[in-house]
């Protein structure tokens, strides 16, 4: 099977890389979320008389996906932010047809010799917490600061006005479609979010959509080398990404240090400085509740994918069980305070 994919990949890549032929080797599937099958491989070819040996990543649509994401969106986000100089892998090719590898896919460079933190690891960053934390929240601020029009992403999905409602409705639809059992906590959260709209967004930004620990690569010196998984990127309120990054699920067991990095206060201050925006506490509170609701919606979809055996990757089972239970608890804690006298 992998030999077959290697040969087909080689044939596909040759014209894309401007090479007479490409030799594909070392193709191996790696963990990379449940929304795409992710493989690493090496491509060896001659270009302008030079022999090149590149480490590349293949992201192919699975038979069924955890959430319905658009690989074109992900590819274009990589293009735009790579060009802007953010730590993002260079995108190489996007294929929407099914002829080359049976399903749509895209190819990008592999950032080698890096680590990615598992959310199950108590303290993945160790002595590099501060350094990585500074970069993590600075880069998020830079994404918030970028002008969607000038980086060519102005037609991304999202609402220019009242993006909060657009997002709540999006995830409510996911729950409507995918819940296998009634979800009183998620439903109460949706009602609360609709009854208590956040203040108007300060600006329209590209929202990464899944900016968190586990979705970036860092090297042994504690330098972030790549922000990954842009498949849920869209236009919206920049506080959406900050609320998601601060969510306790990504805190490696210490919610006072979001993403297992710097303190919450410092994280927000770094983001404000890099973005030039303010994290209004009332607005951020709303977006943090939204983040946990969005998480719950994703995990409900994961449980459905697994239960219907459309995608039996155990990450779907883990998400639909552990993560949903976790976010239900977070939502109850936050919303029950709202109901207190």
């Amino acid at each position: 099977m992998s030999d077959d994919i290697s040969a087909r990949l080689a044939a596909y890549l040759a014209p894309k890389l401007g090479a007479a032929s490409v030799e594909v080797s070392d193709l191996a599937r790696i963990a990379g979320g449940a929304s795409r099958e992710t493989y690493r491989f090496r491509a060896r070819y001659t270009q302008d008389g030079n022999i090149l040996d590149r480490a590349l990543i293949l992201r192919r649509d699975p038979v069924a996906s955890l959430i319905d994401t658009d690989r074109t969106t992900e590819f274009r986000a990589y293009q735009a932010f790579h060009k802007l100089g953010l730590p993002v892998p260079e995108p190489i090719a996007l294929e929407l047809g099914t002829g080359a590898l049976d399903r749509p896919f895209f190819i990008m460079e592999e950032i080698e010799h890096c680590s990615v933190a598992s959310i199950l690891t108590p303290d993945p960053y160790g002595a590099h917490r501060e350094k990585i934390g500074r970069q993590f929240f600075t880069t998020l601020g830079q994404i918030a600061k970028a002008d969607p029009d000038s980086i060519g992403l102005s037609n991304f999905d999202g609402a220019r006005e009242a993006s909060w409602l657009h997002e709540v409705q999006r995830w409510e639809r996911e729950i409507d479609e995918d819940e296998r059992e009634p979800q009183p906590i998620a439903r109460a959260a949706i009602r609360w979010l609709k009854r208590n709209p956040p203040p108007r967004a300060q600006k329209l930004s590209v929202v990464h959509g899944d900016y968190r620990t586990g979705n970036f690569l860092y090297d042994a010196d504690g330098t972030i080398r790549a922000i990954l998984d842009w498949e849920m990127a869209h236009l919206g309120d920049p506080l959406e990404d900050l609320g998601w990054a601060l969510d306790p699920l990504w805190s490696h067991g210490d919610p006072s240090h979001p993403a297992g990095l710097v303190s919450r206060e410092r994280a927000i201050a770094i983001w404000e400085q890099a973005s030039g925006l303010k994290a209004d506490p009332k607005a951020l509170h709303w977006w943090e509740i939204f983040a946990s609701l969005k998480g719950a919606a994703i995990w409900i979809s994961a449980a459905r994918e697994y239960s219907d055996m459309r995608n039996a990757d155990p990450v779907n089972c883990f998400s639909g069980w552990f993560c949903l239970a976790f976010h239900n608890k977070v939502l109850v804690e936050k919303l029950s305070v709202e109901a207190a006298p």
Partner: protein
Amino acid sequence: MKPDVDQILGLSAQQLMTQIAPQLPAGYSQSTAGLLGIMLGFCAQEFDRAAEIRVAENRDLRELFSELAPLISDAPLKAKLKAAALSADPSLKISDLNTANCDLRRLLIALQSCVEDIAGDAARAAERRIWGILLASAERRLLKLPGT
């Protein structure tokens, strides 16, 4: 005496995570095997508590419906709450408990939504009572990760 089911699952999880997964090639196979080990660990936790969680939650919800039904003026909802308060779990099979739990949770959503629209202190107290039930439910269903 045969080993207990939760022990079988727990030991299998441990062996998968600490002995088998490390022998696999790094990458998707290894991480998947590790995750399967965690799933078995969750199954071990759930085996012992699954019935208790559902019985307790169903009991709590029936008591809640009995207590809050007088507050509700919507006649069809009030009737459903009264009927549900008098219902009982048909058996201790997890599938039966789940079916009853789904019916009760569906009614809880309708009740909470209705209470939120009622003015007054009694309704606010009812809301807090509902959140208390939801908190207990969320806490019961949390899972422990290995090593925590």
